């Protein structure tokens, strides 16, 4: 990103560099990641070791999954602000149901709220054409209210994080986090779907030019409904992984991850206006954010300043991408 700012816009080299970056957005991202790692090494020599890497991956994986919700919805020009709440709801429901049911049944029960929120989001955005941001904020609020009511009913029955979830969320094998077992297939499916399936192309088409896509016969509401249901289910899975990682009963377990998830998708090169981006960039974006978080923690930057920095990153990166697109 810093390269974009510093290259002079007049030189043809700058033009070429810009084009290169918008064609291969992952390359400058990897460069940025490398630069950040060097900076981190200078800041605290010796911090980068195998243990730190595993831990960073452990935290980056749920973030990358949640950012996946933002990536796929942003491709159509949307956003999923309910993802954080949905993940928290799923985690809480699973924790309270795991005592009484088989793991598989508990997971199915826990995914029901995610499914419902996804359906409502999809109907609101796809059929009624409410702006996705407002719609998902609203459903997030409703879901949180439902969770509060639900909490009352289960307060006596107890809360338990099942062992298999602890293994998945926190465990490590040969220095690699076990959550990769869940993450790698999911990420592969997302990348494959976006790149090589009809559904993926529909998302890009809708985000690029909705009118053209409609005229070409795309059934808008069906695509959007499917999209938001998938996004919600993905958020639910994130909630499960996060519960295994944090292992506490909290009504707002995953909510603080919402802003970083938007930031990760934006940094990863997915345009918030739609039609541009991909999941590989988002994954790198999530890792970058975790590295930045480590740096901020090392420098003892308070939570408030961290939010300011993340907000500024979202705005700055969006503005820069807009600039690149306009210049082409």
């Amino acid at each position, binding site marked *: 990103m810093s390269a974009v700012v510093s290259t002079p816009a007049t030189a043809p080299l700058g033009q070429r560099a810009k084009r290169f970056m918008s064609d291969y957005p992952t390359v400058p991202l990897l460069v940025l990641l490398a630069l950040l790692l060097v900076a981190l090494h200078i800041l605290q020599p010796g911090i980068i070791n195998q243990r730190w890497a595993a831990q960073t991956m452990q935290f980056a994986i749920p973030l990358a999954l949640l950012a996946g919700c933002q990536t796929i919805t942003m491709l159509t020009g949307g956003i999923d602000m309910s993802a954080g709440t949905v993940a928290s709801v799923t985690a809480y429901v699973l924790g309270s149901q795991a005592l009484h049911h088989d793991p598989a049944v508990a997971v199915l029960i826990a995914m029901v709220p995610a499914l419902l929120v996804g359906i409502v989001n999809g109907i*609101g955005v796809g059929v009624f054409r409410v702006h996705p941001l407002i*719609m998902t904020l609203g459903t997030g609020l409703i879901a949180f209210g439902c969770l509060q009511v639900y909490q009352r009913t289960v307060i006596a029955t107890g809360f338990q994080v099942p062992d298999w979830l602890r293994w998945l969320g926190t465990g490590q094998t040969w220095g690699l986090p076990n959550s990769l077992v869940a993450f790698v297939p999911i990420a592969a499916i997302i990348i494959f779907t976006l790149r090589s399936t009809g559904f993926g192309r529909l998302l890009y088409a809708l985000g690029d030019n909705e009118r053209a896509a409609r005229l070409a016969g795309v059934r808008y509401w069906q695509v959007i409904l499917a999209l938001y249901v998938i996004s919600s289910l993905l958020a639910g899975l994130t909630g499960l992984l996060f519960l295994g990682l944090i292992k506490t009963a909290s009504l707002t377990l995953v909510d603080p991850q919402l802003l970083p998830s938007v930031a990760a998708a934006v940094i990863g090169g997915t345009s918030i206006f739609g039609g541009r981006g991909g999941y590989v960039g988002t994954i790198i974006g999530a890792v970058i954010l975790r590295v930045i978080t480590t740096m901020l923690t090392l420098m003892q930057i308070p939570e408030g300043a961290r939010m300011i920095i993340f907000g500024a990153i979202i705005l700055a990166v969006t503005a820069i991408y807009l600039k690149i697109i306009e210049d082409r």
Partner: protein
Amino acid sequence: MIRFLRQQAWVLGLLALLVVLFIATKIIQPNYGASDFTALMRAVLPYAFAVAAQAIVVIGGGIDLSIASMMAVTSVTAAVMMNGASEEFALVVIPFVLLLGFAMGALNGILIVVTRVPDIVVTLAMLFVYQGLALLILGSPGGAAAVWLKTMIAGTVPIPGVPDWITMWIPNALVLLVVLLAAVWIPLKRSHIGLSIYAIGSSELAAFRSGVPVARTKIIAYGIGGLFAAMGGLALTISTGIGAPIPGPYLLASVAAVVLGGVVLGGGRGGLVGPIIAVFILRLLRTDLTLLSVDPNATTIIEGTIMVVVVMLGAFLTMRGRSS
């Protein structure tokens, strides 16, 4: 007269709905009296200012997602500055906080104009920036408010010559709300700037070609939105006595009330009266639910559902209007 009625049909309909709700409240709870009404007004204050802030921005064709965060920043700033300070010092605090609100709103507008990133993205980013700022100023709820400010929104207005049973239905908070909104809105609406805000809301291109300074007008619209948000933040601090760094549920409420109040998302149409009546309706609904002894958490669900349905219907009507 008939023309006036036709023009204001939506607002009058809302007013009728409000009256029906008041009657319903009285039926549900026959003891519902003047003191409850005063309490309702105090609770409405921050919401009403948030809605006013959102309304003016939406009329100008934008949307400001950072309103709740700006309220949090102004609320904590006021609470921290008034903490331990003398009563008179509040006279300095209030103009400063109002100016701060205007500056934050104008900054949103400037960023939108300069970066040309859509308002919804800019204000989303600024939502987080301001929320972080509020947390930096005050890590947890605290601070204080001057006593005379607190008494200003409590109680009712004594008017000499008017019997008590009338004045007890005129809470200070309501008077304050009406006076403050009118003081900003009426001069604005009659001025050149007000007209320009409506113009850029209906069609930015047409406004630009007619010589309206679009960028400046947009910045001013957001600035005034920020000013109203600062009033909301002050109202919050004054009514609770402390500053709250975590933004309340004002964003969604403000959007819902604006849509319900007849301001079209997309801009150019509507006024301030409709949204303010709408916010009264939404708050009174909450009161009724509480009086019906609905679980307070379930109230959040019902309220959220109502707001989402309102926004959905609003979007649906806009879509129908566009296609016909």
